[in-house]
């Protein structure tokens, strides 16, 4: 097996809060190969963003820290890398785009300036050259009339345009990995499809690996090769996309599918998973999903379930996984 491009091993990330230390990410493993798209899905608050921010070490400093685990990028552990070396990786080898295009760009600088900034920092391009490159990137992400839009301020652009500009900025230095944290959640449906399309196209063109975070299984189905399902800070199931859609094994994953609206499908009704995500500082002993799980029984209330292999490349963290015949 070829060495992974990015390998997250038993990552634990903690936050100091008024009610004590909470573990927002608890022992998560991820493996991202060259040129691959890996999806992370789960309800809001399950630790997807914190996982992503941990990889680039962008956690809010005052409260958050990586408590343990390793993040191997090209075999180098990012967790212990000096900050200066980390800065050479951010925006250059590993880039990130965020959920909120409306607030992720600095309101007082033009979009062009913000793209040039990263080109100057990592590729040493000077003003004119950087500007030409910024215009090229804007046209690459499908912004019409890039020569004039390059001088626009963020507030002069729509949400979709801003997300395109963010993508242009993130890809300006040809990163090997793009971390996209719910890049389309804040956009309306038609724009969502366009942005996903664009990301797929650029991924092929640049040969990047993508870590795509979403709470939308539809997005996963269209874009990812492998998926990791997260619940309450833990990875609970991991499989190739087709496998996960065919034989979801964790009751939570099954619940996620059941809650998908299927237009024209056999199951027309929407059945959201009953109950809510438990608060991280009051997790029950045993499985974190027990309160909402129809299969909870016996060990579920005492011991956190270990990983079990379902088949080659498909594993699940559950005492009583759903069986398919």
């Amino acid at each position, binding site marked *: 097996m070829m060495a992974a491009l990015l390998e997250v091993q038993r990552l634990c990330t903690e936050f100091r809060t008024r009610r004590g230390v909470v573990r927002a990410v608890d022992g998560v493993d991820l493996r991202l190969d060259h040129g691959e798209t890996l999806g992370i899905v789960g309800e809001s608050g399950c630790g997807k963003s914190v996982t992503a921010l941990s990889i*680039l070490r*962008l956690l*809010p400093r*005052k409260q958050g820290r990586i408590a343990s685990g390793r993040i191997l990028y090209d075999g180098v552990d990012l967790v212990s890398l000096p*900050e200066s070396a980390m*800065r*050479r*990786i*951010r*925006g*250059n080898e590993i*880039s*990130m785009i*965020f959920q*909120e295009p409306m*607030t*992720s*760009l*600095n*309101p*007082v600088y*033009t979009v062009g300036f913000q793209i040039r*900034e*990263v080109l100057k*920092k*990592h590729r040493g391009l000077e003003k004119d050259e950087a500007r030409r490159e910024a215009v090229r990137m804007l046209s690459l992400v499908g912004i019409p009339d890039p020569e004039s839009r390059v001088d626009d*301020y963020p*507030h*002069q652009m729509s949400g979709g345009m801003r997300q395109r500009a*963010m993508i242009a*900025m993130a890809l300006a230095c040809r990163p090997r990995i793009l971390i996209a944290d719910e890049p389309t959640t804040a956009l309306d449906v038609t724009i969502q499809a366009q942005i996903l399309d664009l990301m797929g196209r650029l991924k092929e063109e640049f040969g990047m690996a993508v870590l795509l975070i979403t709470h939308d299984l539809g997005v996963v189905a269209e874009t990812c090769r492998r998926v990791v399902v997260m619940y309450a800070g833990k990875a609970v199931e991991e499989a190739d996309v087709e496998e996960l859609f065919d034989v979801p094994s964790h009751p939570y994953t099954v619940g996620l599918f059941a809650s998908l609206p299927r237009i024209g499908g056999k199951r027309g009704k929407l059945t959201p998973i009953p109950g809510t995500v438990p608060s991280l500082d009051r997790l029950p002993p045993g499985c974190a999903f027990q309160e909402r799980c129809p299969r909870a029984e016996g060990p579920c209330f005492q011991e956190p379930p270990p990983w079990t292999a379902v088949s080659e490349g498909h594993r699940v963290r559950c005492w009583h996984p759903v069986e398919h015949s």
Partner: protein
Amino acid sequence: MPWRYVGRRLLQLAVILFGVSVLVFLMLRLIPGDPAQLLLGEYATPAELEQLRHKLGLDRSLAVQYWVYVKSALQGDMGVSIRTGAPVFQEIAPRLIATVELSLAAMVIATLFGVGAGVVSAVRQYSVWDYLTMFLALVGVSMPIFWLGLMLIYLLSVKYPLFPMMGRLSMGLDIPVVTGLVLVDALLSFRPDVLWDGLHHLILPAFTLATIPMAVVARITRSSMLEVLDQDYVRTARAKGMDEWVVILRHGLRNAMLPVVTVLGLNLGLLLSGAVLTETIFSWPGLGRYVVDSLMGRDYAAVQGCILIFAVIMTLINLLVDLVYVVLDPRIRIHE
């Protein structure tokens, strides 16, 4: 630059000045006390008094007095000081420049140190530095300028004579007046000794005057920075691999400056009133002291001139603050 906006603001300025001139005019005329009596002393004869009143126009109706006043003011003639007999404009101009020099110096000190301390406090929130600066800032805003000035003089001029205690320049030093700003004139005439001497005289009063605005600016900068550093675009800047100082200054401070500019603008008014006290304590030959002396002597023309100048300055500063806003925040530009 939105010129139509500037034009509209200048028009507002004219309206405000009209209002101020009417108010000042009426206020002084309605204070009991007879300037002719004051000028000529207790033993003046009624005839002499009558004659002076006539000369000053005090015997005519208020409306006429106001009309005469405005007409000549528009021609740069602010009347004659009844204490010195010199044209008010001539009296005010050099004093105004002395005050401007003091206030600008105080503003520079307040901005540099206030913003600097606030930024470090925000970046190192809850550190010893943060607690210390915020404590000092609290002391600073509640410090009576008068007391602080006297303490500084006592400590740094009398007990340990490190600084001169009064005036703008030492006796015997003289330079040709070009701008009226001692430091600038010293530079223009290549006189490093005068530059040094002027600076030496300026430091204590400027620091005294800067104390309150510096403390206010430090606190506003800190809270504004704390808010800005939590914004998504600051995280984006970090995600781009920008150096920490770029993140803090270019992406953080630039956005955090908006409320700071507002506060600086508001404090320029405070600065002018502080200037009256500071100039008195440090014998600084500025407008602040002049206006107090003129008030005491019921020197109508002089007081009117001063207050009018204050009003013009305040309105210009407000205009300037708004323009700085437009420069700092591109989102405002589009609405114009």
